[in-house]
């Protein structure tokens, strides 16, 4: 039997203590300063969203806390013409690709605009059926290949998603069709209450690449430097027709599965503590401080800026709440069928009646 850990050693560039192993690769110090500020802003947003749910402003929210480096690294190498096919927890990744964070709140609020991606941004709306988007990713990448575009597509999904038949079919189609796609697994080691070891018997997700005769990689998902560099290399390679690839980014869900979940029921606090020490923010902070590139004042400025931006997002979100329920009828089909038109009229009357 194969030892997955040995075949796919963990790729790391910035360790838990904030020590650089090797060099920054394609990244610069400036990149990392900016990345750190963005990551901190995203963390602020995420924690704020959690609180908004607690206050009843939004509904169920799935936090990405702990997975920021993986998500940001996943899209770090993408160009405007590249595609992102995200899963439901990817507000950080989507944000970097041009989807405002309001969408994360829309999603939790059940606001009709949740998937109304800004024009021109090549991001698909998040959907909730585990692994279904992996096939969409294959289709998108295939379309770009058929049109001879030099474009990379990244599809993201969780560790639990790799158990679904759709994931397998996607990997198989992608490899047979040789599409320019990177399968990016955010292995946060939990699928709600189910730990990785009950999700699969293999040691690593990366080794699943062997089943499809493609290259796989296992990278420290809490190490932005490692993930971003790997994705730079692989995006370039897929654009040159060498894909698909499978990337396993080893990370951890620092919070609950969603605001409706209580991890206390099923996982040990020691494990959480261990991973708190591996927080992707912490190691970047340590490194930047060690370089003398981050002071307490810088931090305070970043935080103030983050707060301000989050407030703006929430304000934008609140404004957007004033939307007509009738939109529900207007994007079922391109043209409203007559049968549905009469239902729409009934609905309109009802909306008027209750004064909504």
């Amino acid at each position, binding site marked *: 039997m194969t030892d997955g850990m040995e075949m796919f050693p963990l790729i790391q560039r910035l360790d838990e203590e904030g020590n650089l192993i090797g060099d920054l690769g394609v990244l610069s110090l400036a990149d990392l300063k900016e990345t750190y500020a963005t990551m901190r802003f995203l963390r602020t947003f995420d924690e704020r969203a959690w609180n908004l749910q607690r206050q009843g402003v939004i*509904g*169920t929210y799935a936090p990405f806390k702990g997975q920021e480096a993986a998500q940001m690294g996943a899209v770090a190498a993408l160009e405007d013409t590249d595609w992102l096919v995200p899963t*439901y927890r990817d507000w950080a990744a989507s944000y970097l690709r041009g989807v405002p964070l309001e969408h994360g709140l829309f*999603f939790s*609020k*059940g*606001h*009709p605009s*949740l998937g109304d991606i800004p024009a021109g941004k090549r991001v698909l709306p998040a*959907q*909730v*059926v*585990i692994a279904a988007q992996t096939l969409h990713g294959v289709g998108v990448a295939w379309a770009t290949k058929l049109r001879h575009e030099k474009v990379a597509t990244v599809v993201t999904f969780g560790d*639990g*998603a790799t*158990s*679904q*038949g759709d994931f397998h079919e996607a990997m198989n189609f992608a490899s047979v069709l040789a599409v320019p796609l990177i399968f990016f697994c955010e292995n946060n080691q939990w*699928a*709600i*209450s*189910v730990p990785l070891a*009950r*999700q*699969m018997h293999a040691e690593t997700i990366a080794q699943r690449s062997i089943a499809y005769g493609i290259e796989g990689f296992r990278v420290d998902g809490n190490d932005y430097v490692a993930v971003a560099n790997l994705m730079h290399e692989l995006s370039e390679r897929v654009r040159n027709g060498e894909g698909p690839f499978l990337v396993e980014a080893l990370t951890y869900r620092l919070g609950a599965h969603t605001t*409706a*979940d209580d991890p206390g*029921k*099923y996982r040990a606090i020691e494990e959480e503590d261990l991973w708190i020490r591996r927080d992707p923010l912490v190691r970047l902070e340590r490194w930047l401080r060690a370089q003398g590139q981050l002071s307490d004042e810088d931090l305070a400025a970043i935080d103030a800026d983050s707060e301000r931006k989050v407030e703006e997002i929430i304000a934008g979100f609140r404004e957007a*709440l004033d*939307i007509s*329920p009738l939109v*529900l*009828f207007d994007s*079922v089909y391109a043209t409203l069928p007559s*049968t*549905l038109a009469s*239902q729409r009229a*009934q*609905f309109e009357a*009802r*909306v008027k009646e*209750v004064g*909504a």
Partner: protein
Amino acid sequence: MPDMAKLTIAQALNQALEAALMEDSAVVILGEDVGKDGGVFRITDGLFEKFGGDRVIDTPLAESGIVGTSVGLAMAGMKPVAEIQFFGFIYETMDQIASQAARVRFRSLGRYSAPMVIRAPFGGGVKAPEIHSDSLEALFTHTPGIKVVVPSNPYDAKGLLLSAIDDPDPVLFLEPMRLYRAFRDEVPEEAYRVPLGKASVVREGTDVTLIGWGPSMALVLAAADELVAQYDIAPEVVDLRTLTPLDEETIVTSVQKTQRAVVVHEAVRTSGFGGEIAALIQEKAFLYLEAPVLRVTGYDTPYPMTMFEDLWLPDTSQVVTAALSSVRF
């Protein structure tokens, strides 16, 4: 008098599962997060601790896998009770339900059977994300070989679930998630059965038959109260409880008496099970009917984003209005 307790549907279901695990060592519970977590709605709470990981099993995240392995377990003599975390994910496993579980007996001319239960929370009203709130029961009423059971209250929930587990054929057991903890009822302590295939006349009346199941019963009952109180109309209320095989007799007898019927469901209107009921009534009681059978249903859109689900879902006033139109037709 037997021991009684005031229980929610969630508690009643948990009791039924516990009783089944105690009674029959062939019973196993499997699904996503049904173990330590006790299920995302806590219906299997405490069972993993009591019966261990060989009886209450957290599976990998794959619905076709859950149902497909259940078919194998059942064919080999076990009695799997599988949980699908939300009914909207049932699509993933439709082949294993409709082409496999439902056909085991037929395909083998009775040599094999697949006694298994597939439990799933369903229906809207809890502000869940997309796909989580869909009412897809009609799809399975079109599948010979399985039974579709939908309780609407704690007493039936426990008794029907135990009957479903006893049943020698596969049963799809749909649990109205909005009602899981909405109210309590007297529920006997012991493991009693409520028979499958029998509708229940919840309230007798003479003016119009109101027909519902599962989550819709809440509005049907509220509407019935209102009709009596405000309009002096005496509705007869039928809770189908089992959708297939359908208790046609109870429906037809009632409509022959009241000469009017309103069917209520959350599912989208077109090809919802309400259509089947209406078709059936006009076939079997045509000469009795004083008004068309009316349907109060969801609209023909995907289940809405939840900001607007309350507007979208059928409500009591729509049932009242339909009943009045029927009576005044």
